[in-house]
């Protein structure tokens, strides 16, 4: 396990009060607000929420890849104890792709269509180790391709992205992310664009690789079934904030936040054949028109008058946190 140059930490990554805003005509609008998150080496954590909940923005903020007019405006991003908001751009670039890597949603778009696979892999190595022997670097690329299950890796190094299927391209992207053996991988819905069998293969593969290498993995998804297969701990995000956090099994068995409960009830397999699928009424509010108080209250089935008051994320039982004025009690659970 690598220790950082500036300090030691039990956590690979720790977010403390992260806030990311987008500057617009009407001033800065927060897309992510006061997010706290911690992940240990080898741990797999799920970051769950609907589109627009701020989960991807959280991932990009960690990587320092928020494009203008967006910017991280508050909080600490500690990678192995080193605050990424305080390091110079050069140091951030050195960490990016080396100690932390990211995989994106659409494998058809993440690889540059006009560059060969070996070019796109080699640069990830040479960017962090310019003096490396080219043969050694090339062998590492080949081994990485083989590791993610690409047949004939030696030959496939010379291929272009369009010569791969979507699933294979995502494997290439994973191989690139893993090239430098990072401490942290952020996977932003990497299997959403793939079909279910490929999805299962890739999830199994990622799980194995991260375990072997003690890599911390943040899996961003809207799909609770994926989270159930893969992760140990879950953060549920809604409208830019974490609304519930805790061990996977606890959350699935006994959600405390009405939003989490809604997400769980929306899983199709929970329904009788022919029965109407559950939907959370309404939709995620746009980031410039957030409701007052609990941001979920307009869609909440249990809403009460005091839900208009601001509410913090509070501890609720062992290792569990919830941001709700009236967390769901034992009696209200729907089995």
């Amino acid at each position, binding site marked *: 396990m690598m220790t950082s140059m500036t300090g030691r930490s039990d956590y690979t990554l720790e977010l403390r009060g992260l806030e990311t805003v987008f500057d617009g005509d009407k001033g800065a609008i927060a897309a992510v607000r006061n997010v706290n998150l911690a992940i240990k080496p080898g741990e797999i954590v799920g970051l769950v929420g609907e589109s627009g909940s701020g989960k991807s923005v959280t991932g990009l903020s960690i990587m320092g890849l928020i494009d203008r007019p967006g910017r991280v405006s508050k909080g600490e991003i500690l990678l192995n104890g080193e605050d990424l908001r305080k390091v110079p751009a050069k140091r951030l670039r050195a*960490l*990016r*792709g080396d100690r932390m*890597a990211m995989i*994106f949603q659409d494998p058809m778009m993440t690889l540059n269509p*006009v560059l060969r696979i070996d070019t796109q892999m080699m640069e990830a190595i040479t960017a962090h180790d310019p003096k490396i022997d080219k043969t050694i670097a090339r062998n590492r690329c080949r081994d990485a391709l083989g590791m993610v299950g690409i047949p004939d890796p030696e030959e496939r190094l010379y291929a272009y992205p369009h010569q791969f299927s979507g699933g294979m391209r995502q494997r290439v992207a994973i191989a690139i992310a893993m090239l430098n053996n990072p401490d942290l991988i952020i996977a932003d819905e990497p299997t959403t664009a793939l079909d279910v069998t490929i999805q299962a293969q890739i999830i199994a593969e990622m799980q194995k690789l991260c375990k072997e290498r003690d890599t911390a993995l943040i899996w961003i998804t809207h799909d609770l079934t994926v989270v159930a297969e893969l992760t140990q701990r879950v953060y549920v995000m809604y409208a830019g904030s974490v609304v519930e956090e805790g061990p996977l099994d606890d959350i699935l068995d006994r959600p405390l936040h009405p939003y989490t409960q809604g997400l769980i009830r929306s899983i199709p397999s929970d329904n009788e054949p022919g029965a109407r699928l559950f939907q959370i009424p309404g939709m995620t509010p746009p980031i410039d028109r957030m409701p007052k108080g609990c941001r979920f209250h307009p869609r909440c089935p249990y809403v009460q008058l005091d839900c208009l008051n601001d509410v913090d994320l509070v501890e609720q039982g062992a290792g569990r946190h919830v941001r709700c004025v009236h967390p769901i009690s034992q009696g209200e659970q729907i089995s």
Partner: protein
Amino acid sequence: MTAYLLRRGGQTILTLLVMSILVFVGVYLVGNPVDVMISATATPQERADLIMRMGLDQPVWVQYWHFLKGALSGDLGNSFLYNRPALGLIFERMPATLELAFSALFMGLVVGIPLGVVAGLRPSRPESRGIMAFSILGFSLPTFWVGLMMILLFAVKLDILPASGRGETVDVLGVPVSFLTLDGLSHIFLPALNLALFKISLVIRLTRAGVSEALQSEYVRFARAKGISEWRVVFLHVLKNTLIPLITVVGLELGALIAFAVVTETIFSWPGMGKLIIDAITTLDRPVILAYLMITVLMFTVINLIVDLAYTLVDPRVKIDGGSE
């Protein structure tokens, strides 16, 4: 690949055939070249002799047949006006026009691409707005007016650059060129810049659009996530994708450059094909018109072929094969 080239060759021959028929009949319908050429005092006998000598008394399809026979053996007929092979006349003038066109293309790329990259990378900066304003001017101002203004400014007022001619030339493989001597360079600079102005603007806009599109793409984000330098992101990941549309348009525009050179050549008295074809049209010098158009069609075909081949170098997704499209 061979099948592809054969198919392209066949298409070219067909194009040449159709084009020559159209031009032949068109010029025949417009008027009689003898009326333009012969002096007003010529007797009817002299006139009839001339018409017979030129073969103009024959029906048009017979005349075309003679032309076709000659064309197959590489003879496109003699100019009515100069009584010399039309092809030879054109080849004499062609290097000057091609030199001008390629110089303008070179300027368009060398100036346009960097400016386009700057404007694409930082669209809201003042320098980028300045570049875009310049490109609007380059698009909108008529070539002949800009040419005249350039002469007025650089040749008349400032007196630092010559206004006409090719200047000193050197022979390269038997072809005279200007750009290798200082005097020649000073002569070609203004006409080339005049001709290039529109291309520079076009290249700026294409490059800017390509760069800003690529910058928003997921593959650029992924490239940045690898921690590679911003320099490599821009000049490899972004620029190589931008080149694809650029090659298409530049290929097409090279033909237009050769054609538009007519205006610039007239303003700067550049001794190219432009002057020749204008004269040929006013005197209905059919062999010269035909030969000029045949050569132009051939050049377009070759340019398009080169563009298609260049695609395969830049975009790996493009494959050339002999099968149907």
